[in-house]
Every structure is written in structure tokens, then in C-alpha cells.
């Protein structure tokens, strides 16, 4: 392969990485939102994604409904499940602190995973969506569904930004993220706002799950395998930062996909992890955030 061949390969992987980044962006936004507003890392976020993916699969592939209808139902169900989990499990132990909430969320992840896997069973599943041929643009293969994800990710980011900046509930969420007590004393209904946050996070997890199924085939373990990469994106962005997630998602995605030039595919998560180590060594607070809460 000559020099142009190498360049083409890099361009190809970058185009591929756009799709990966779009998925990571959607998947991490809801996770980062909860960290920002509720103050803890909700590991169960990935299992909510898994739930959304399999609910979509059930309505779409088993019952034969249109993919978009199935996906909408799945997103709605996931948002409701996220809210119920928050009210039944997380709210009562809030006073115990972030580490206990984090460990509890691992329990929630186990619970959701066990139920999903028991119901769905083993095997590889995929959505009933039309198989589209890749476009060839100047020698580079572009997968249509990856571009659809890119549009979805852009729409999600813009939608979330508008929601947080323009609506009353969104502004309440932002106020609560900065100072919960002050927001409460200034007349913001903290309980209602917290519920709204969980619904939004659930919708984002739902979209992430649907995106996961669009990107490839599904197994019950596939969502949990994403947690490491999602954590990497969240750390690179600075835990709790939302706008940082947009840049971080693509940095991590490009790094992982470009690593295919030199390493076997199984090492992609290792690349994500290497980025985490470098970020924690140089700038542990990520793009945003203060250093004090990070290091001892």
C-alpha cells in the first residue's frame, strides 16, 4: 500500500469513528446529566440502554411493528423505568452519599441485567431494518446508518441544550445541579425537578440503546461492555460536564477507531482506558471541573 492508500485508510477509520462518536455522545449524555444533577455515577445507565434495545427488538422483530414505533415505545418505557428505579431505590439512600449510591447502582445494573437476560435468553439479535448498501464517496465507504446516528446525536445534543436553557424545567435542572439547597430555598420544586432529570436521562439511555442496536447486533452482554468507554468519555469530559461530552465522545471514538491501524480490534477498550489514565495524570478534572474534589 502506498502513501495515498494509508491516507485513505485513516480517512476511512475517521469516517467510521464519526458513527462511534455519535453513539458514545448519545450514550454518555444521560450518564453525565445524572452525575451532574444527582451527584453520582449511575452504572445501571448501560443496562437501561440494554433494556431499550431489547424492548425495541421485541416490538420490531418479534411482533413485526415498524422500527420507529418500536423505538418510540422502547424509549418511553426506558424513561419510566429510570424514574421508577430512582424513586424506589436511589432517593431513599441519597443521604448515605455518592459512594453508596454508586455501589447501589451496580446492584441495579445486576438486577436489570439478570431480568433482561433471563427473559431474552442467549443468542444474537438484530432489528428488522432495511439493509442499506454503503455509499462510496471518493473511495471512502460511508455506512448510511452511522450517518443517521450522527444526525440523531446532533439533534439530541441541540435538543438537550435547548431544553436546559430555554424551558422552565430545564433551567430548574441547571439550578439544582449547581446548588440543590439554594435552588430549593428559591422556590424550585426539587422533587419534581429531580424526577424530570431522571426522565430525561431515561430518554437518553433509551436513545442510546436504540443506537446500539442500529450500529450492530445485540446480545444481552453488549451494553455492559460499553460502560468502560462511557466512563472514559465522561472522565475526559470532566465528570458532570455536558458540553465537554460532545468533544470527548469524538476524541475517544477517533482514538479507538484509529488504533485499528496498529492493534487488533479487541484492544479498543484498552485505548479508551489509556486515555483515562493520561487524563487522570495530567488533568484529572477533565475539560471542566475543579481539581480539589478529584485528588487527595
Amino acid at each position, binding site marked *: 500500500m502506498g502513501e495515498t492508500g494509508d491516507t485513505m485508510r485513516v480517512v476511512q477509520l475517521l469516517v467510521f469513528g464519526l458513527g462511534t462518536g455519535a453513539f458514545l455522545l448519545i450514550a454518555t449524555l444521560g450518564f453525565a446529566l445524572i452525575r451532574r444533577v444527582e451527584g453520582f*455515577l449511575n452504572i445501571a445507565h448501560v443496562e437501561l440502554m440494554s433494556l431499550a434495545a431489547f424492548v425495541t427488538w421485541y416490538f420490531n422483530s418479534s411482533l413485526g411493528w415498524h422500527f420507529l414505533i418500536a423505538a418510540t415505545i422502547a424509549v418511553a418505557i426506558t424513561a419510566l423505568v429510570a424514574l421508577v428505579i430512582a424513586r424506589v431505590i436511589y432517593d431513599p*439512600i441519597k443521604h448515605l452519599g455518592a*459512594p453508596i449510591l454508586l455501589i447501589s447502582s*451496580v446492584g441495579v445494573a445486576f438486577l436489570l441485567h439478570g431480568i433482561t437476560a433471563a427473559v431474552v435468553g442467549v443468542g444474537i439479535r438484530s432489528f428488522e431494518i432495511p439493509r442499506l448498501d454503503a455509499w462510496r464517496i471518493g473511495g471512502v465507504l460511508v455506512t448510511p446508518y452511522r450517518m443517521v446516528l450522527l444526525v440523531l446525536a446532533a439533534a439530541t445534543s441541540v435538543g438537550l441544550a435547548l431544553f436546559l436553557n430555554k424551558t422552565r424545567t430545564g433551567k430548574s435542572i441547571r439550578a439544582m445541579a449547581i446548588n440543590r439547597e439554594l435552588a430549593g430555598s428559591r422556590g424550585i420544586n426539587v422533587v419534581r425537578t429531580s424526577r424530570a432529570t431522571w426522565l430525561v436521562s431515561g430518554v437518553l439511555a433509551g436513545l442510546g440503546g436504540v443506537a446500539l442496536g442500529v450500529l450492530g447486533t445485540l446480545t444481552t452482554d453488549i451494553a455492559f461492555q460499553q460502560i468502560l468507554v462511557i466512563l472514559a468519555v465522561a472522565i475526559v469530559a470532566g465528570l458532570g460536564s455536558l458540553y465537554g461530552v460532545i468533544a470527548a465522545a469524538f476524541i475517544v471514538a477517533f482514538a479507538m477507531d484509529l488504533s485499528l491501524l496498529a492493534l487488533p480490534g479487541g484492544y479498543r*477498550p484498552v485505548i479508551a482506558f489509556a486515555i*483515562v489514565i493520561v487524563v487522570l495524570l495530567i488533568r484529572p478534572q477533565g475539560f471542566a471541573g475543579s481539581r480539589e474534589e478529584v485528588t*487527595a
Partner: protein
Amino acid sequence: MNWGQLAITVVTVVSILGVLTLVLNMQYGHAGMINFGVVAYFAVGAYAYVLVTQAPPSEASLDQYVIGLGLPPWAGLIGAALAGLVFAAITGWPTLRLRGEYLALTTFAFAEVFHSFIVNEQRFANGTRGLVGVPRPYRETLDFVDYDIVLAIGALVFLIVVYVIFERIVKSPYGRALEALRDDELALITSGKRSRRFRMEIFLFTAPFAGMAGAFYVWYTTLVIPDLFTAEVTFIVWIALVLGGEGSNRGALIGITLVTLFEELVRAIPFSTIRAAQVAAELEVAALGLLLIIFLRWQPFAAWTKAPKRVARS
């Protein structure tokens, strides 16, 4: 159901995982460090033991591993402890200056990367195929007794030794300093102690025991495959610790005994179809998750096992 066999299995597994729970209790319960990668220190011990003791790779076999020192089992056990120590040094150096959730994330990530390494690197230990039929130490010399019983007793003795050592540390002035590290780090620093050094010391001191527990695990399973060393091990140890009440070595042992009993009893149920067995295995995962949630919330054993926090009233 063979109750005698079940009892031997439970004693062996409780002893091995009990050491891991005690290690985690020292790190989290006493020193306040959230280690979400416990399984990695266990796994490096198991793999180190096999690499040290197995025969060098032969041309004729299908094995792809490159290291095999062919040393006796006691050397393997030392190798397992050293591997735990080295891995703790490598992972502890960048992570221990981080707090709470950041430490949890990096230890978790290190464990996942190690898992990904043993899955993908064929030359290390045959990748996903792993190494099977690892010989049990002194099997021939001990052929007049049931080897399972010998192993159960050996593992139990190991657990008791670790328990006694850890209890001595906890009760010592050093142990009180550790509790200060967990409960009121500022007070510890103010009284002239270096908190970061304490963290590193306890991390390095406890990890070799997790490595040795890995070697015992190899004797029990006679194989090392990546599937044995998933994040599930970490979480089971966490569930056990939370169940018994973190901060108490006795509580840690009660916790791991209950979790292991639960798991082995579920495993011992005979199922008529493969599908039923799969559903049961998945529901067991769900039940463990539910237990973790419930015990974190109500902490039923905490009043009995947990020492009160020593924090000055403000």
C-alpha cells in the same frame, strides 16, 4: 444432592473468596479506598501461579503461551503473591491520589483492561481457551485422602492466617490511623500523618494476599480461563462486604459465607432443561443485585459487626 460434597465446596470457596473480602475490607472498610477492580489482583495471582509452575511450551502441542518456568508449587505461590504486589504497585501509583468515585473508576478500568489483555493475548495464556488441567500440588503424595478435603482445610488455614494478621493490624495503632484516614482525613493530616502514603502502604500490603488467593483458586478449579475472572467476582466480593457490614473483618466473613451458600445452593438445584438452568443463572445475578441494594439500604448486620465511626462532633 450430596451434602458432604457441597459442604467441602462451600468451605473452599468461602475461604478463597473470604481472603478477597478481607482484602477489600482493609482497603475500603478500614482505609476508605473504593477498589472496583478486586478481581484483577486475584486474576494476576492465578495466572502468575500457572505461568511459574507450568511446563515450558512444547512445539508439538496446540498451546500458544510462551512462558512456562516449570517450577514447584511453592514457587508458584510466591510468584502469585509477587504478581499481586507488582500489579498493585503499577495500578496504585497513578490511582491512589484520586478520591472516591475516581479511584473506583480507575481500578475498575485497570481490571477490565487486564481482562481484555488475557482474552486477546494468545501468547500470554492461550487467550479465551485458557489453560486447563493445571496439576494440583502434591496430588500424588496425598493420594491416601480425598484431595478436596485437603484443599478445603488448606484454604481454611490460609483464611485464618490472613484473618489473624489483618485483625492484629486493625487493633494496632496503625489500624487506628487507618480508620482516621477513612473517617476524618483532615484530622489525620493535621496530626502529622501522610495520608497518601498510608493508602499506598495498605494497598501494597493487602494485594499479595489477593494474589495468593488466586493460586488457591487455581488448585480448586484446575484451570485458568478469562471467564472465571470477570467483574462479577469483584461485585460478589462487594456484595459480601456490604452484607456483613464494611469495616468489620468478622462481618466480611459472615457476608461471603452467606453469598457463597446462596450461590452454591442455587447451583446445586437440578434443572431438567438447559433453558431453565440459564434462566436460573440469570435470575441468580438479578437476586445478587437485589441483595446488594437491600443490604446497602437497611444494613441489617451493621449494628452487630460494625465499629462506630470515630468522628468529632462539629
